[in-house]
């Protein structure tokens, strides 16, 4: 078994100190060590976006990040975003627009949508589509996900 590392970081606004294996991914840490299961394992190879988290304001695939590299960073997961006003607006828009079916990819999409709109509150439809390109959904055909994100952008104007 690999060496253990102590790390300190901010998770969803709360300072955390935890011990993780040096080879553990950030995905496994949030799910298995910290018990936050909203972040999903979809592929483990950075290809599907189901495990999207935000680190220092930038979204990334948590399956590709070492947990140890969260040390000193500001990490947000879907649980943190969902408790935030902006997260609520996204959630409500996803619900109202019918952007959720099986829902397994949805937390990743909500995280990425938040990032897209933080970077560009006026994102056009094409920019939104580009912005969520790295997230896969097998149920919805994406149309309603794009509409949901555009709906939040429009409401903010």
């Amino acid at each position, binding site marked *: *078994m690999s060496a253990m590392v102590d790390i300190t970081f901010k998770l969803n606004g709360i300072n955390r100190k935890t011990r993780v294996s040096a080879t553990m991914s950030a995905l496994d840490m949030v*799910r298995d060590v910290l018990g*936050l*299961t*909203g*972040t*999903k*394992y*979809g*592929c*483990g*190879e950075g*290809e*599907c976006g*189901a495990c999207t988290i935000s680190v220092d304001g930038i979204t990334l695939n948590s399956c590709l990040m070492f947990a140890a590299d969260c040390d000193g960073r500001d990490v947000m*997961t*879907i*649980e943190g975003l*969902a408790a935030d006003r902006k*997260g*609520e*607006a*996204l*959630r*409500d*828009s*996803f*619900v*109202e*627009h*019918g*952007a*959720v*079916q*099986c*829902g*397994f*990819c*949805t*937390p990743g999409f*909500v995280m990425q949508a938040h990032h897209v709109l933080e970077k560009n509150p006026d994102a056009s439809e*094409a920019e*939104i*589509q*580009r912005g*969520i*390109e*790295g*997230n*896969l*959904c*097998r*149920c*919805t*055909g*994406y*149309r*309603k*996900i*794009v509409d949901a994100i555009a709906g939040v952008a429009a409401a903010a104007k």
Partner: protein
Amino acid sequence: MAVKEAVKDTEAKTAADGGTLIGKRIPKMDAPMKASGKTRYIHDINLPGQLHAKILRSARVHARIKKIDTSKAKALPGVHAVITAADVPNQHPIGVAKDHLPLKTDRVRSLRDEIAAVAADSVEIAEEALKLIEVEYEDLPILSDPRDSLKANAPLIHPEPHGADGTHDHLKQGMPIAYTGKKDNIAMTFDYAQGDMAQGKAESDIIVEDCFSLHYVTHCCMGVSGVIAEFDSSGNLLLYSNTQVPFLHRREFADLLGIDPGRIRIIQPPIGGGFGSKLDIYPFEPIAIYLARITKRPVKLVFSREEEFVASPTRQPVLLRLRSGCKKDGTLTFREVDTIHDNGAYTSWGATTPFVMMQTISSLYRVPHCSYHTKAVYTNNPYAGSFRGYGNLQATFAVEAHMDRMAEAVGMDPLAFRLKNAQEPGEVTPQGMNFKSCGFKDCLTTAAEHGDYERKHRDNATKWNDPNPIKRGVGMASMLHVGGGAKIYQSDGCGTILKIDDFAHVTLITGASEIGQGSETVLSQLVCEELGLPLSAVTVVNNDTDITPWDVGVHASRTTFIAGNSAIGAARKAKSKILGMAAAKFDTTAEALDLRGGFVIDKASGKRLVDLSKMIRSLHFSDKAELVMTTFYYEPPSRHQDREFKGDVSAAYAWASQVIEVEVDTKTGIVKIVKVSAAHDVGRVLNRLGIEGQVEGGIVMGQGYALTEDLMVENGTIRNPNFRDYKLVTAPEIPEMDISFIESMDGEGPQGAKGVGEAPAICVAAAVANAIYNATGVRMTELPFTPERVYRALHGKAAPMTWSDAE
């Protein structure tokens, strides 16, 4: 909170406009939880004391197992059990043809084959232990093309097992193939005929023959497969399972374990996508159960994504040859179809998809004389299961491309040719299907109009030789699919228990599972419609076999229709009970009363007589105390097919036409879908938001089938078991989707509705093939239409698809 306001808004309108929720845009009831990351899928559930299991799969495509040594794995700290077939002496065969054991004994027949399994304290330890298991193989010849498997002297995929008596299955009637072996490589055959083929041929002015080759694709559910198994101290089994058919599986697991089905409880956590992949038992499920039994601990087994690609089912590859005739006026005379299906190494539902394919072949259009012969053939490839559309993507691809070729041969516009032969309401086909509601012609004309089909089709065909390398084309395709259940099992029914508590809150307990398709919401709508209640008054319980009444399962686009009728039946019984008691209380008749907006009302005046919750309490807490709880079982008025595959298997049939416009870059072979104009006969729209989502999602799944998805199997090995190389459609690639719903108001459907789940994925590939032809004059006969394949076809570098029948 906007969501609640939106729902309230819907409800307020509902009360104001006469109380209907039908046809409205109703947000899914489970969506807020899912969008907040709070929904617990099987991957998110962990039981105290739980062990983690992993499976050792074959390192060879086809081989004898000479020796397995698990001693080093067993010695690894943290390992609780390592099992092989030798540790489970009474394994029961699984699969549709009962042709394999969960843990393989003397040989492996594909790379997914399960050789051993480990239960350990952690996933990491279990994986480490797998590496310590030593297996000696003796390679056998690999069969990776079903045509090779059919050749005389081809090696057998299922020879008689070691230790058998050399008599094969003919001396042991009823014994599973897993025990007897099989004398040839044919897993299943279907032969269907109607009319008189000789007469059909004699009446034909034109005969067209085509061959098509269709590829492997797989479900790619975003949530990978998983199961948790736990035995209690009395030997009762609790399974957390992603199955789509909990009640059927309960029986199968009971057979497997030799215990009473009543001792098996299946809980279905929300699932990360199904699409038909979870209709059969796969080896990982019995393996987790064996490990739980041996370790006496809860055992959780979850796939990796690579494992999901390698060891979950596929849509089966099919070779098809069609020959059809028509008269000079375009009237179809006969159709003759042969198909060979790559069954893979074992038989799951994929082998039975000809049931559905023959419906399209015989009955999408009026074909008086028809024959269909099919063989599902064993190979050492991955084995095929059921997948949204169930053979109909393959059948429709071939039939609809073929119809365009026939239209051209007879000199008719493809739309006119289809309209000439399209089914109409009231038609009973020679196969026995009764099209009581049929919006096919409306679908054809609506899709054509929205896609400006006739004009564009004419114009595009004049531009094949234009210098512009970017070509545009339109193509159309239509489909017929079951829309009122499918009578495959002894019952195609669904039970409902409906409980109204003393606050007039309804608990709808239904056998039908939610798999993301939105059944929870639609069933609640139907109940609210009967009881005059807002959606917020309903809780749905649909995922626990100890509680829910029987249902055959989520498949065949049946849930809205079957479970919907069942829910309505239970709600009507409850309503009748309430109104009967209210009539006595108000000294009137039940017929004079109704339920609206949470009140018992006087029907004539609309006057509110009493709050429903108060009425229920007065029933409950009176001298003649009574609970309002009803049950209802709905069995559709469909019929089993006879031995000749004739019969009206569905209580209703769904229709659709899609016109697809593509752009083809002739310099690169890249095909882009610009617009899909879809018209679907859905009977009636119940939840507009939900049905749009089903159709959009289905179209994009069909787009993947047509253009990008290709599970590349070479010599039995999957070359691209990951999302980087198995290309799903992404958000920037989706087309404009113009969706029309044809409301044919089916007489048997719940509020007139029919099934829709599978339909939207079915037409896409055929319409794209027809559109590529319209753009370029080149006919694509092999899927998927990747840039390379299209480029080769456009530049004369593709070998034409040939039918090499091995008979």
